Every structure is written in C-alpha cells, then in structure tokens.
C-alpha cells in the first residue's frame, strides 16, 4: 500500500496484527507498535517505550487525513486503486497550472476579465473577499480566458475552479 505524507510517498505493509499490537514495515523499516484508540480518532501509540499521542482527522477528500502529533501536523493520503483512478481524472483540471482555483472559501467581489480575453502573467483576473480582506487572483502565465465559472457575488469553496484558461 502506498501512503502519501505531505510530499513523501511511503510504502507501507501490515505484517501482523493481534489486538492492540501491530507490526508494520514502512519503507523497509520494521516497527512493532502498541496502539489503542482512546477517544474517537485519537490514538495512544507506544513504540519502544516512547509514548505518542496521534490524532487522525478525516480530510476534505476520501481516504485523506490530517494527522496531528504533539509536534507536527501532516496531510496523509491512502493511495489505493480507486484514489489513483480519481487522481488521474482530477489531474486534467488541476494539472493545468493556468487555471485559477480558489485556495480558500470566500466571496467573489469583482471579475476583471471576460470570456475570450487574452491575459498576461501577473494580471489580476478576479478579487475574492474573505474575513475583511480582499485577495487578488492573478494569471500565472499568458493565455486566453476560456470560461469564467463564477459571477460577482458568488460564494466559493476551497479548491473550486474559478476560471479556465487556455
């Protein structure tokens, strides 16, 4: 099984599991852990006597998790066949670096371009307001506005595609 942690792709294999004890191999290293769920989504994990508290929270997408340890937070994704398939399909829209995608929720205050318009890198395409702050979204490269998918006054979600650019 492949598991993605931030930018690292790790190979994980469950060797055995008996009650609270599990043996796993992560990228060639073998670990035997004693892991119990203490509250919903919160685990106490003992590894060679070291005590870790790990919180596993469902992420935005299926099979993705936000994992908190005392010191660090990670984005983790389980990459199974289904995820691979889905990523391939999503890839087309998200992989096009030119497209404008909202990184955060907000409200469209102003759209400064029209369908078919040629844009230059750095040109402001639209303004989104959230929490009393206006953010300008700029073209990353030169291109032509293919399709504007939102209108002024619309509320947008995180990762929503706003403008398609060719």
């Amino acid at each position, binding site marked *: *099984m492949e598991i993605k942690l931030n930018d690292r792709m790790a190979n994980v294999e469950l060797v055995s599991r008996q009650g609270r004890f599990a043996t796993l191999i992560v990228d060639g290293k073998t670990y035997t852990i004693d892991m119990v769920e203490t509250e919903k989504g919160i685990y106490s994990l003992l590894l060679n006597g070291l005590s870790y508290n*790990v919180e596993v929270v469902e992420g935005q997408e299926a099979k993705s998790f*936000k994992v908190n340890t005392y010191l660090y937070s990670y984005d983790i994704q389980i990459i199974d066949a289904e995820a691979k398939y889905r990523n391939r399909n999503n890839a087309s829209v998200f992989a096009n670096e030119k497209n404008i995608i909202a990184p955060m929720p907000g409200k469209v205050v102003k759209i400064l371009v029209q369908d078919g318009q040629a844009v230059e890198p750095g040109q402001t395409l639209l303004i989104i307001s959230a929490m009393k702050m206006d953010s300008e979204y700029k073209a990353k490269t030169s291109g032509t506005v293919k399709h504007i998918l939102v209108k002024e006054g619309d509320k947008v979600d995180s990762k929503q595609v706003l403008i398609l650019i060719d």
Partner: protein
Amino acid sequence: MNLKLPNVMIHKVLVANRGEIAIRVMRSCREMNIRSVAVFSEADRKSLHVRYADEAYCIGPAPSAESYLNMDKIIEVALETGVDAIHPGYGFLSENAEFARKCIEAGIIFIGPSPEAIALMGDKITARKTMIAAGVPVVPGTTNKITTEDEALKIVDEIGLPVMIKASAGGGGKGMRLVHQKEDVKSALGMARSEALSAFGDDSVYIEKYIESPHHIEFQIFGDQLGNVVHLFERECSVQRRHQKVVEETPSPNITPEIRAEMGAYAVRAAKAVGYYGAGTIEFIMDDESHYYFLEMNTRLQVEHPITERVVGIDLVKLQIKIAEGLALPFQQDGLRQFGHAIECRIYAEDPYQNFIPSPGKILHISEPLGLGIRHDGYVYSGYEIPIEYDPLISKLIVWGQSRQEAITRMRRALLAYKITGITTSIPFLKRIMESPVFIKGNYNTHFIENNLPFLLSTDSCDEICEDVAIMAAYIHYLDQLKAQSNHIANKTASSPWKDFGRIVSIKGANIY
C-alpha cells in the same frame, strides 16, 4: 458631560458584538449575576455567543453594515429586552461617538467613555492638539490639517525626513503614506488625501516625523466618573504584521522602571485632559533611544486586555461595568502591581505559508491547551463553520509565568498542545515566534516579523520516526474504518425477514400481537 446619577445598578446587559469578545464580556456578567443579551446576524445563528447568552436576538443579514453596525436596530432590541446597559466590545460600534450618544438618549448606559471623549480622541488632529496642551509628548509634526504642498514642505524642512502623512480620521493603516524624498511629498499628500476621503469621508491629513525602528508600547488606563484616573501599566505590542498585532506581552522587555513610571504618569495626564472615564488605552511609539511619544488613544477595551488582567489581577470588564454604574475606582495607583509576566498570542484563521491568506471554513476538531497559567479566550467549537464575513481572529491564547522566560516556554508548550483541524491557522507561525532568538532576547521592534520572516516561516524537520508514526496511525485507522464498513454491510446483507421480525418482537414485546 456626565448625565448619569451615581450608583445605578446594572442587572441586564446587551453585548453589541460577536465572537470571543462577546463571550468574554458575558462571562463577567454571569459572575456578577447580570443577565446577558446577545445580538446576532443571520450568519451567526450557530455562533457560540448566541448559545452562551441568556437571551439572543437576530438583528439582520450577514454583512456587518446591516447587522452589527446597525445602531437603531441594536438600540431597539435593547429597549425591547429592557437592558440597563450596552457593552460594545471592541471593533464594530465600540468607538462610535454617535452610537454612545444614541444609547444615552434612549436611556441606556453605554459601557464606555463619554461620546465627547470618543469624538475628541477619534479625530487625530484634535487629539494631538489636546495632548500638546496637556504637556504630553507627541511625535514632532503638524497640529493643523495640511492641504497644500507648500505647507507640507515647510513642515518637512522643520522636522526632517522621513515623514508620515496620516489621515486625521484614520486607523488601520488606511490613508497613510511614508515619504523618504522631498520630491515625493506632493504625490504622497494627494494619495493620502484621496485615500482618506474614500475610507473615512474626510480628507484631513497631518504630518508626523517617521520614527525608524519603533516600539509600540501602550498603557492601560482606567477612570471613574468622579475624575479619578489610574494606569494599569503597559503592554508591549511590537510584534505586528501590516499594523495588525500578533503577539503582546507585559511587562515590556524594552522599558526601565523609571521610564514605565514616567510614561504611566503621562498616560494618566492624557486621559485626564479629556475627562476620561472607563477603560482606555494610550498608545505610545518609542524609538531605539527610549524617546517616546503619544500616538493615539483607543477609547475601548483592547483585544489584548487579558495580559493586563493576568499580571495586575483585575477583571477589566467587571471594572468597566462598575464604573458605568457610577462607582469610584476601588483602588489607587500605589495599590497596583505587576505580578509575573503574561503573553498573548492571537490565533487567526489564516495560512502563514500562503502569504497569510484568510482561511475560513468548518472546524473539524479542536483540542485546547490546559494547565497552570493558561487562559484561552475563543469562540469556535468542533463542527462550527467560521463565516467568511468577519474578522479572522478565532481565539487568544494567554499565558502567565513567574518570569518572561517561563512565560515563553509555557506559551510554546501551549501552542504545541493547541490543535485545530479543518481550517488553517497561525498556530505554527506563533510557535516559531516563541522560538525566535530575537523575540527571546526581547529587544524587538515593529519590524520584527518582516525582518525575521525566513526564520518564522521555516518549519523544523522531524526525524523519520515521527513521520512513520503518523503514517502507521493513519493506516491502522483507515483499516479499522474499512473493517467497520464491511461489517456493517455484511450485517445488512445477512439479515432475513424472520430475523427482523424476531428482533422487533424482542424489542417491542409481545403486545404487537
């Protein structure tokens, strides 16, 4: 100036605000056996202040202008619910003289200073004039509004470059222009005036000498309606980003006891000059040679008031209410002490690693830090969706320690234990501030964040084991989820009508026959 009779008892308070400050005010009300009334916009039905209050009323749509800034609607609710007083919190209507006046005219106590004091201090040129007359040091510059380039150049010749051109009605960095070169004076003046006009409806601007590497140090003052004024010491607020405070601490590591006493005395003098009562803050700007100047007065409770409460040991909201009732200050200056050290970190819903872009959204899970010396003033809970319409401040973490060093290590511990998932917050950035050698040393100024950005944005890498621990926990969690799902499905498919029938009988008993 004061229309009220002394010693009116306040039994019920409307809090004209939202978020953490509304709850903070209601907490003190509850301890004083005062009923609290919340008002809320349509975006805030699920907000914690609505749930915490004894009563709650909707005052309009999400945009602030149609709800939290709607004076007539708020006063209407106040009259209908029969409150004795309105607490404005900070922001929104807290420094609006017209609102304070409307409250008084409606026969409701405004928990704050007189409308006259708000208006006077709200106009920066008038405030400067008043302070000069009272003998309080102000930043060298003009006392009258500047309209022509000639007037501006004359001042520049007198005080020297660089200068700041500022809007008289200003605040929050709007209508402000820094000028380094003489030839830029004209265009900067024009831009500051037009910005001031569009932001505040008033193009009055003035010129001040620009203080290089300034420290922002403010003094908490308190006055009663009998003319007594004391100060409750300072707060060091130099950790700022775009004029927005990020971390505050008290005592300031940048002033000596002598300078503290001097500045405190000036702060009291400044407040007395305008017949001030209630809670207020005198902001000073201080250069590297410890020259300090009056900058402005905030005529309200500050966001960062808890650090003062912690070291002085006084509930400032309770004191505000008692002063509003007409009572005298229950202590004198020589009865006040700073005990230990307090630090506040403001937790914002923003992404420090994406140029601090706001990050509203749904809170999936929150675990708050606990333990000795920790206070958490917040308003979000698991499952709460932070609206996009309002301020990104989600909570304030306040720690106390016997020494500054203990307070810093305690803050670091608290920030590590503070987990909010679902949205991105400034917690890791704040933790980095607590680790910064410049902050730890203490002689930082308002350029601290911009000068230390690479350090503050870097994350310390962990050894592989903690990554692997996270991976294993996530994997086993995922496997257990899968198992639970398949068990669920298996149970469903395995059911037969006879089994179901038997189950119903056993639950409901035989009387279904």
